[in-house]
């Protein structure tokens, strides 16, 4: 019987990294599955409270000058909407944004103008957001809602 000698070649070329790779892979898969990069990334921010008849949130400070208001009435028209700004009736979001941009340029102090969106009760939320989006796109800084049409 042939006895094997101790002079066999060992194939180890360093520390055994197999457990390390296993653990690291598990951690990586955990992070990939459990992590979320952004909770929500897109918001239309309003700092103007809704204008509601009969509600006074805070008394105005002394020497308070009421802001210039630009009202946009929104009503449902078929599957879309019709926005009334001044004496113009607009059914397209891009046309509305262009019109509001023109109006923005005509105000002496456009940043102080409060845009009041006044939607009817049956107007889709998407169309309300479309009008809001157009007002933001026209560079208006103060955009809020009016609920007057709701209780007609």
């Amino acid at each position, binding site marked *: 019987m042939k006895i094997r000698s101790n002079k066999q070649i060992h194939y180890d070329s360093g520390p055994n990294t197999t457990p390390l790779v296993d653990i690291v892979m598990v951690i990586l898969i955990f992070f990939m599955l*459990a992590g979320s990069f952004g*909770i*929500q990334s897109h918001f239309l921010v309003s700092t103007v*409270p809704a204008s509601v008849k009969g*509600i006074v*949130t805070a008394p105005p400070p002394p020497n308070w000058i009421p802001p210039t208001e630009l009202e946009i009435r929104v009503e449902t028209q078929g599957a879309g909407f019709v926005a009334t700004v001044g004496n113009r009736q607009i059914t397209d979001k891009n046309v509305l944004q262009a019109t509001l941009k023109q109006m923005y340029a005509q105000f002496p102090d456009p940043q102080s103008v409060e845009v009041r969106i006044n939607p009817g009760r049956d107007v*889709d*939320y998407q169309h309300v*957001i479309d009008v809001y989006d157009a007002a933001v796109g026209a560079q208006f800084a103060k955009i809020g809602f009016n609920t007057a049409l709701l209780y007609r």
Partner: protein
Amino acid sequence: MKRRRMPDMKEGGVNVTPLIDIVMCLIIFYMLVAKIGVAVGIDQSIKIPESIQGLKIKDFGNTLTLNVRPGPMSAAGPVPQITAEVGGTMTELHITGATDSLVETLRYLRAGDPARNIPENRSFAVIIQGEKSMTFQYLAPVLIACAQANVHNVSFATGIPVVEKKP
């Protein structure tokens, strides 16, 4: 003179060093960027409207997300179904109600409540996660409640519109 021979180089298997390098980089990236366990009460099943102009909110610490869906029509008018994560638990809030009303909840989160150990929060903001198919009559009571609770900072969660590819 006896000449010594250099030992044979024997590879023990696949070289995993580059793999470990890349995997470690990925882990560090995920650890820094990923938000694990951050829940702000957003109902992901709600289909939100789309908008082009939109801002990012980085800090959700001072916000309360209201998930708003169209509800039943009562004698008093349309009743929106509102849920929010208040005090770590998902709660259904009502437009009218004694203990769990939306106005009262917003009021004590904004103005503070010593009994609940909640301090005044002047930068308190509300995020409305509304179903895009609902009509304004369901949204209006929420906006009115925000105005009543003196919450002036209201944001509307919107999605980025998908651009259709031209053939």
